[in-house]
């Protein structure tokens, strides 16, 4: 029983990280209708920026996190403007997809060039005491608590932002109908930039949380969590913010349970198998909308 609860909290914690990454995928897909496969690598870049800011530049953890978020935000805006925007009107949506894969390799190889291939051990950035429960039978690490809280806060703020602010409503409008949104006076390019900015800033936070929980950083660190978060976004219904949260947490729990109770070797395969089953049963994902039009 105690081990079940302990696996569950590990699953929720890992899932919270997937959820934060999945947000970047799902928002960009919802608004720009593209899959940004470089999103996972932004996580890695964010983690490297935070790590170097502390170990090389000697910044305080708070400043280092700020630097990571700000630089990743700028990087997201730049990637969109330089690599994706010129292709937005391309005849085939594959053009931008392939470019995104190219950007992903570019980021990995740049990191390889700058930081080398060997794994760096991530420093303790977030130092929060652990919570001891049931007379010491279960300990919840500080980072686990912070991760879950961060996920809940980010989801709540983002949901509020999209629903209640002007830029948020512009995002909804662009997601629903780009041309109609323009006719309302919404600047579509600026709205897509904002979406990339938010997604990439959150990726830096996800990188921090990921490397704090699993403190080993290489240029490929973002790749697998990125793909799994993509699975989580599709699982929850791509384009949906609550879908990203539920999909991410479910995927994290499935992964940890799979690792613990079935086999640690095939845990990843189980994640992807679950995706396939969900898509067979409900092709739009758990929270995905069935597209219906009324004439």
């Amino acid at each position, binding site marked *: 029983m105690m081990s079940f609860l302990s696996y569950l909290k590990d699953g929720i914690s890992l899932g919270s990280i997937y959820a934060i990454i999945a947000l970047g995928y799902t928002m960009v897909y919802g608004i720009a209708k593209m899959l940004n496969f470089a999103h996972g690598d932004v996580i890695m870049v964010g983690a490297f920026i935070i790590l170097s800011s502390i170990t090389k530049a000697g910044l305080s953890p708070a400043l280092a996190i700020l630097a990571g978020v700000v630089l990743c935000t700028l990087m997201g805006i730049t990637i969109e403007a330089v690599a994706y925007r010129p292709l937005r009107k391309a005849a085939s949506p594959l053009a931008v997809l392939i470019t995104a894969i190219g950007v992903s390799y570019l980021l990995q190889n740049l990191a390889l060039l700058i930081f080398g291939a060997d794994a760096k051990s991530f420093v303790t950035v977030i130092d929060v005491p652990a919570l001891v429960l049931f007379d010491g039978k279960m300990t919840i690490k500080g980072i686990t608590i912070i991760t879950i809280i961060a996920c809940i806060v980010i989801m709540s703020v983002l949901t509020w932002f999209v629903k209640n602010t002007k830029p948020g409503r512009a995002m909804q409008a662009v997601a629903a109908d780009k041309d109609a949104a323009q006719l309302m006076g*919404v*600047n579509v390019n600026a709205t897509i930039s904002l979406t990339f900015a938010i997604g990439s800033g959150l990726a830096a936070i996800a990188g921090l949380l990921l490397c704090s929980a699993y403190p080993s950083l290489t240029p490929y660190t973002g790749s697998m969590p990125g793909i799994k978060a993509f699975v989580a976004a599709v699982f929850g219904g791509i384009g949906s913010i609550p879908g990203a949260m539920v999909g991410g947490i479910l995927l994290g729990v499935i992964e940890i349970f799979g690792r613990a109770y079935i086999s640690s070797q095939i845990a990843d395969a189980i994640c992807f198998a679950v995706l396939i089953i969900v898509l067979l049963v409900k092709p739009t994902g758990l929270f995905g909308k069935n597209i219906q039009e009324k004439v």
Partner: protein
Amino acid sequence: MPMLEVKDLQVYYGVIQALKGISFEVNQGEVIALIGANGAGKTTTLQTLTGILPAKSGQIIFEGKDITKVPAHKIVEMGIAHIPEGRRVFADMSVYENLLMGAYTRKDKAEIADSLALVYRRFPRLEERKNQRAGTLSGGEQQMLAMGRALMSKPRLIVMDEPSMGLSPIFVNEIFDIIQKVSEGGTTVLLVEQNAKKALSIADRAYVLETGSISLSGNADDLLHNESVQKAYLGE
């Protein structure tokens, strides 16, 4: 000086020429109808006016300013609202949120509230359903919402693309009544319609588009009684 002046406008889709140099004008306070068959270039004309499609050559002048190259999202601020074909309401937003989107470029909250009250007065049905998802409205109600949304920007010129498309005859009459009221309220109207008879009955003047060129123009009443118009567009 006309409010809107279109001079020798040419538009291409790739190599295919959709508008072969059309010119027309809209004066302050008028209701102008653009009629024509499917594929004549009516929607293309409106989309070029509001910057959704680029013009190859020619000029669009609105209130003395050249707006030929103004991007679509800046048009509404200049005083033109465009109600697109098929209404294009935001299906997942509520009626109220759709109306707010119409006032997206406006800042004064009190004035926006005034406009909202005005729209609700003109379309009581929208107020009854203000919290309903727009996607669940009937076609006629969606058209009302699209009109209300356009009015929320307080436009001086409103361009409408096929407002009667796909509506039941009762709604068609209601929509045309509303267009007339909008016009009486001081807003200039440029209307694209396949329902030529209805359009001509409320318009002051009209232009007939035929495969990318204007083939006829004149007073709406005259066109209504013009033999070739009757044959081609009024089914008489």
